[in-house]
């Protein structure tokens, strides 16, 4: 933590930014001359570090910071869709012996179990040492939530990834729309009113009762998509499709784990109650609906807050954050990994490791939280006044830091197994059959989900 002590921890975000710019002024002119903005390949002065990522795992403000700190490094960032990145991309690259591998690749939590079973595809971070401080993966392990760290440890105990954020799950809601419909709208009242999922569904029904028929015809609903409840409930148990039996691979329990059925049935109850708009998340209608009030509630992992701000800037101040029914939950988060590379490709192990350790250090995670809302995976920050005291004006000055910190503390570590993503998709597809009315009998859909999940093996 010495790095952190030296830093600008106690100052607020903007002064921190100002100071770092000030610090730049003091950098020797020789360094300032280096300009690698247009570098496309390594030169004598420039190193091009390739990063494959999705969404906003690598945040632009921090990229600018790094450019100031290390003008000799050019970060070349390629974004892909999640499955294309963590599936097709990494898989083909590893199968081709690391041909085409980037220096750094983000691996999302739903794929973490999968890649843990193929540690040979990644560089073991225990073998790397930072330029400053000579730290290996073993040295920084203590900074991170233990269960998040374990998601980046291969079956052979190699450290293959360092955790980015924690996707602590809460609920974002439009307090203005709640108020207009005569429902509780203050965050504590709301949290209390929907303390359990059945109560949440009841709440939604009350909301729907106040929606005019004309609006209903326009597909106005209580929440964006009831199907999202499934993942939330799954993430609230102690296990999902796997049981942690002490082995690396875990034990498949999706057929017997009652949590699966509970999540499935509750989701269908919610859908049948008609509280969701059935808009697909990340579709165009979803983006538009977010700013138009087509729905008033979204289950919101911390990273979703930035998404709402970006997509619905006109709703500034009209959102608030309440506790998720059932309490706690995690959705999303990634590890930054370093895939193996084929012999003869540029070797940037040192630069990549230096970047990863910088980017995911508590200081930088705090900054990411303050600017973008992604919740840190470094527990030392959970008591930090900059985090706990942070109030987000966009969310009606909700103390988002404190709310998400509480939620994350309640989290029980869940074992993510190899076939997590595949089984999730099979179950999601079965849910969708019922929600979209293609299968009337939910037990039949459930059975189909399980049998499709069998085919993942």
């Amino acid at each position: 933590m010495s790095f952190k002590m030296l830093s600008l921890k106690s100052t607020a975000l903007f002064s921190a930014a100002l100071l770092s710019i000030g610090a730049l002024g003091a950098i020797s002119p020789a360094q300032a001359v280096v300009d690698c903005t247009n570098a496309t390949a390594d030169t004598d002065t420039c190193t091009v570090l390739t990063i494959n990522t999705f969404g906003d795992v690598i945040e632009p403000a921090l990229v600018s910071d790094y450019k100031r700190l290390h003008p000799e490094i050019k970060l070349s960032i390629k974004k892909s869709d999640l499955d294309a990145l963590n599936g097709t991309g990494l898989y083909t690259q590893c199968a081709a012996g690391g041909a085409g591998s980037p220096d750094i690749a983000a691996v999302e939590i739903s794929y973490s179990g999968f890649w843990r079973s193929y540690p040979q595809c990644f560089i073991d971070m225990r073998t790397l040492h930072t330029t400053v401080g000579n730290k290996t993966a073993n040295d920084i392990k203590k900074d991170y939530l233990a269960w998040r760290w374990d998601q980046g440890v291969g079956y052979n105990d190699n450290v293959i990834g360092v955790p980015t954020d924690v996707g602590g799950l809460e609920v974002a809601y439009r307090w203005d729309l709640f108020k207009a419909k005569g429902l509780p709208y203050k965050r504590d009242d709301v949290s209390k009113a929907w303390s359990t999922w059945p109560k949440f569904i009841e709440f939604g029904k009350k909301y729907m009762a106040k929606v005019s028929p004309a609006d209903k015809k326009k597909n106005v609903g209580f929440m964006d998509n009831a199907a999202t409840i499934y993942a939330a409930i799954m993430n609230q148990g102690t296990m999902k499709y796997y049981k942690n039996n002490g082995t690396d691979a875990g034990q498949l329990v999706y057929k017997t784990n009652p949590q699966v059925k509970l999540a499935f049935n509750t989701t269908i109850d919610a859908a049948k109650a008609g509280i969701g708009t059935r808009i697909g998340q990340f579709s165009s209608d979803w983006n538009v609906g977010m700013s138009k009030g087509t729905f008033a509630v979204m289950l919101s992992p911390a990273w979703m807050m930035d998404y709402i701000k970006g997509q619905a800037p006109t709703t500034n101040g009209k959102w608030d954050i309440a506790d998720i029914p059932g309490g706690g939950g995690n959705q999303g988060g990634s590890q930054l990994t370093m895939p193996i590379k084929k012999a003869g490709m540029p070797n940037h192990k040192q630069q990549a490791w230096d970047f990863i350790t910088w980017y995911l250090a508590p200081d930088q995670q705090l900054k990411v939280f303050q600017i973008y809302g992604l919740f840190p995976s470094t527990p030392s920050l959970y008591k930090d006044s900059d985090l706990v005291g942070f109030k987000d004006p966009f969310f009606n000055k909700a103390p988002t830091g404190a709310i998400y910190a509480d939620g994350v503390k309640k989290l029980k570590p869940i074992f993510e197994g190899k076939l997590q993503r595949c089984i999730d998709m099979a179950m999601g597809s079965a849910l969708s059959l019922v929600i979209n009315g293609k299968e009337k009998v939910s037990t039949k859909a459930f059975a189909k989900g399980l049998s499709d999940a069998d085919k993942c093996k």
Partner: protein
Amino acid sequence: MSSVAKVQAKPVINKKPKWQKMGPAGYIALVLVTFLSLFPFYWMFIVASNGTDEISKIPPTLLPGPRFFTVVSHVYEALPQFNQALLNTVYVGTVVAVAQVFFSAIAGFAFAKLNFRGQKFMVLFVILTMMLPSQLGIIPLYMLMGNLGFIDSLNALIIPALVTAFGVFWMRQVIDAQVPNELLESASIDGAGVFRVYWSLVLPIIAQSSFVLGLFSFLATWNDFLWPLLVLQTPEHFTAQVAVNQLKSSYAIDYALNMGGAFLSTAPLIVLFIFVGRRLVRGVMDGAVKG
């Protein structure tokens, strides 16, 4: 069943028989088709120049807005290498087009005009392979490219595309239909070698068709996205389609940005089409099965 015909259009058209009148209904249908054909391009521009909010109003804006250059600058902000991507695409497309025409024409000539053992079998083989879904081999091909060190290089797009069964087949048809045997025979009896005959007699005749094949190869290369997406890693090596997909992939779906990118990646094709559209039309019609 007839073979690929030479252009037979002109004489028929020139007759202008009076057995049909052109009523307004026909023109209305054509105007409608024109509208439907062009509307998606127009819509790209509308969204790119207005922003997502404007187009999701009811009723939506149907006129170009003032934000086009803002959106374009956003595209370049999100992907500073967009111009590079367009250049890369032109480069790959041109190399592939030239190579395909070259290899297809010479092989097509052999299949059409030379008599050698196994010719029949080879032609059959070419036809059969056209039926194979190319996606079937994509994984081993990737591994092969890896072994050759072509991953994340434009070579990975060029090398596997240098020859296609379709190109060879098409050229065989063209040469068969357009080059009269008598011409080649008289030349060869006068002592010209096979290559000489090909070079100075066949090539000039099939120049037009070669150009069309080249254009279609160029367009196909320009529009391909699955394979490039798989093998290209660094933004400096992207092609136009990968660049557009890149804009699409951040999970904030910004329709103005997406459509701006789509528009920028399509505009060069439209410009190209203005110059070569008529030739392409002729090429398509020349290659048609008639009767």
